[in-house]
């Protein structure tokens, strides 16, 4: 079966599966979006434009692109960001995670399990669920707006620091919503834990950022379940990117091996570093320590969503208590190269830049999470065979689409 653009995912993608003797023989996921050559466009531009332009790679995850880009560029131009700047960026990323996860969970995934076709129908038939989505998304938008200056394509976070610090009124506005939002985030975990997800089992390599002290998302080294531990700047030795003839998006592997990144990988590897309240909830709900079913990515996202709501509370509380210092945006000191890796909602994102002595970009390389899990997605579509057996064509399409949605691919990112 072949199919046109899969609805309710970020970007345009279609898939093709070939069934032979009841088994999926071939599975291909194809990005339909045109390539924009962002990496090439940046060459010849001044260093500070990298975050401005790369945030436009994606409309659902602009924050993570701008932050990863800023960090990589700061290394390239010899700036080390202040503690305050880094904490503010962490808060921005909390907003990013909640924005993306809540939207994906409630508006794109939930309709699949509630027997409705769209978020608009969800709103009509299950207004109580729909309102949770709106509440979480609004909270996350508020964070990004207060800290970054705008909810989509944030502005204030630049190479060297923040051009404008958030106002205390803004922070207060966020803090007023905490209790309600934390409750909703907790209910979200309960709700998604109660769904009966399609079941397939498989063994796959997980890869995510790792920090000995915390649930890594802003900084840390990359760790994989294949036993690798490497620094972001060494990414080319581990993450191989290649062109696939039928796809506009590239495919990336861990030295040739298929891997999975994103919430499911982060949860399975760093579960014990989640916020204590989150851990006690997942213990109470008897949620597994490690996930081996790709559909469980949904549950991992719901758990992370709760974690990042609590994390954002800690950071905002800290700033309300300690106040914000006025700091100048730092100026470049040297011009060389730099790499950074952050956890995007969908997995580890790498940005790498090289600049000439005048501060103009000479090289740019971006590896997005979706590119890293596309091979795993094709692999898992093949694993769907037992669930597809004996089903009608439209039911088969539905199941494959559900799997694709569970992965939460971002095709606009993948075809940057």
């Amino acid at each position: 079966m072949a199919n046109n653009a899969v609805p309710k995912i970020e970007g345009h993608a279609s898939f093709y599966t070939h069934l032979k003797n009841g088994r999926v023989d071939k599975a291909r996921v194809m990005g339909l979006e045109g390539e924009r050559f962002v990496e090439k466009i940046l060459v010849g531009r001044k260093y500070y434009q990298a975050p401005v332009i790369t945030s436009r790679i994606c409309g659902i995850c602009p924050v993570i692109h701008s932050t990863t880009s800023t960090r990589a560029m700061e290394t390239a131009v010899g700036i080390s960001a202040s503690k305050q700047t880094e904490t503010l960026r962490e808060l921005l990323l909390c907003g990013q995670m909640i924005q993306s996860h809540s939207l994906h969970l409630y508006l794109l995934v939930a309709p699949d399990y509630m027997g409705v076709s769209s978020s608009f129908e969800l709103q009509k038939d299950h207004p109580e669920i729909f309102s949770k989505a709106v509440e979480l998304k609004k909270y996350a938008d508020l964070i990004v707006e207060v800290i970054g200056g705008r909810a989509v394509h944030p502005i204030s976070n630049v190479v060297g620091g923040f051009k404008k610090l958030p106002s205390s009124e803004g922070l207060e506005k966020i803090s007023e919503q905490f209790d309600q939002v934390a409750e909703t985030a907790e209910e979200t975990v309960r709700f998604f834990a109660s769904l009966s997800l399609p079941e397939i089992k498989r063994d796959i390599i997980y890869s995510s950022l790792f920090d000995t002290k915390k649930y890594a998302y802003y900084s840390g080294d990359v760790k994989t379940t294949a036993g690798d531990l490497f620094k972001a700047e060494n990414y080319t030795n581990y993450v191989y990117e290649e062109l696939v003839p039928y796809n506009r998006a590239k495919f990336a592997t861990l030295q040739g091996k298929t891997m999975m990144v994103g919430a499911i990988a982060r949860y399975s590897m760093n579960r014990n570093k989640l916020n204590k309240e989150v851990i006690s909830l997942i213990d109470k709900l008897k949620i597994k320590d490690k996930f081996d079913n790709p559909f469980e990515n949904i549950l991992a996202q719901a758990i992370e969503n709760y974690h990042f709501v609590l994390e954002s509370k800690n950071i905002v509380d800290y700033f309300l208590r300690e106040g914000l210092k006025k700091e100048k945006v730092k100026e470049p000191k040297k011009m060389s190269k730099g790499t950074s890796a952050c956890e995007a909602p969908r997995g580890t994102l790498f940005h790498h830049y090289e600049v000439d002595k005048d501060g103009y970009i000479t090289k740019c390389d971006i590896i997005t999470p979706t590119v890293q899990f596309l091979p795993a997605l094709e692999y898992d579509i093949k694993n769907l065979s037992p669930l597809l057996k004996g089903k009608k064509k439209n039911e088969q399409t539905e199941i494959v689409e559900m799997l694709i949605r569970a992965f939460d691919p971002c095709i606009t990112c993948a075809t940057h």
Partner: protein
Amino acid sequence: MVNTNKKTLAIFSLTCCEGCQFAILRHYEKFNSLLNFFDIENFRLAQSNNEPGPYDVAIVEGTPESKEEIDHLHMIRKQSDVLITMGSCAHLGGIQSERNKLPKKFIHKADVKTVADVVKVDYVLPGCPVNQEEVFKCLMDVYWGKVFKLPDHSVCFECRQNGNECLLKQGKACLGPITRGGCNSVCVNAGEMCFGCRGAIDQANFEKMVEILEPIIEEREIENLLSIFGEYQKEWKGRKNGK
């Protein structure tokens, strides 16, 4: 009261970041109130049951890249009474239009085109991303049969009203003077310069703008700045020739 005179609306996305779709979904209550006036017949990002045309109103974001996307765009035009473009990509070519300047041996693709290069466009909603309020205002004007007009003042006008300190006066680069307002100077409010995402106003004076920028940044960087979201001058020249 149930509105029985709803118009049909379709929202389409070509090659772009889809940020404009997220921008209009922000403040969901507002988006929701729109549903009192429009039935959303096609919106792939948010729903599975997408109806074929005809539509009363179609919104298009992104640039048409492949043959399929160009054909799709022609189809949308054919099926829609009113076609509105949303965002800098559809309007100016977006960040990707910079690739038109790259040597052809790297890029085995046709040049990036704006939506207006391919089909007739009724209204343009500029910005990267679009201003949600402006989108809704345009849709309501269309609903009531009014002619929607973009503001014809520069970003500076709004920036001063917002009480921001002028960046140019501080010796920093900014494209506010030549850029169309309507964004409430959101970037300058957040401490950043105006990057000109909304394109040039009718009275834009590019020579003067370059003259002002010359003592601040080098020529190469000025060129850089005037082309982040597409060729600002090209669009403006096209308009001057009555295109």
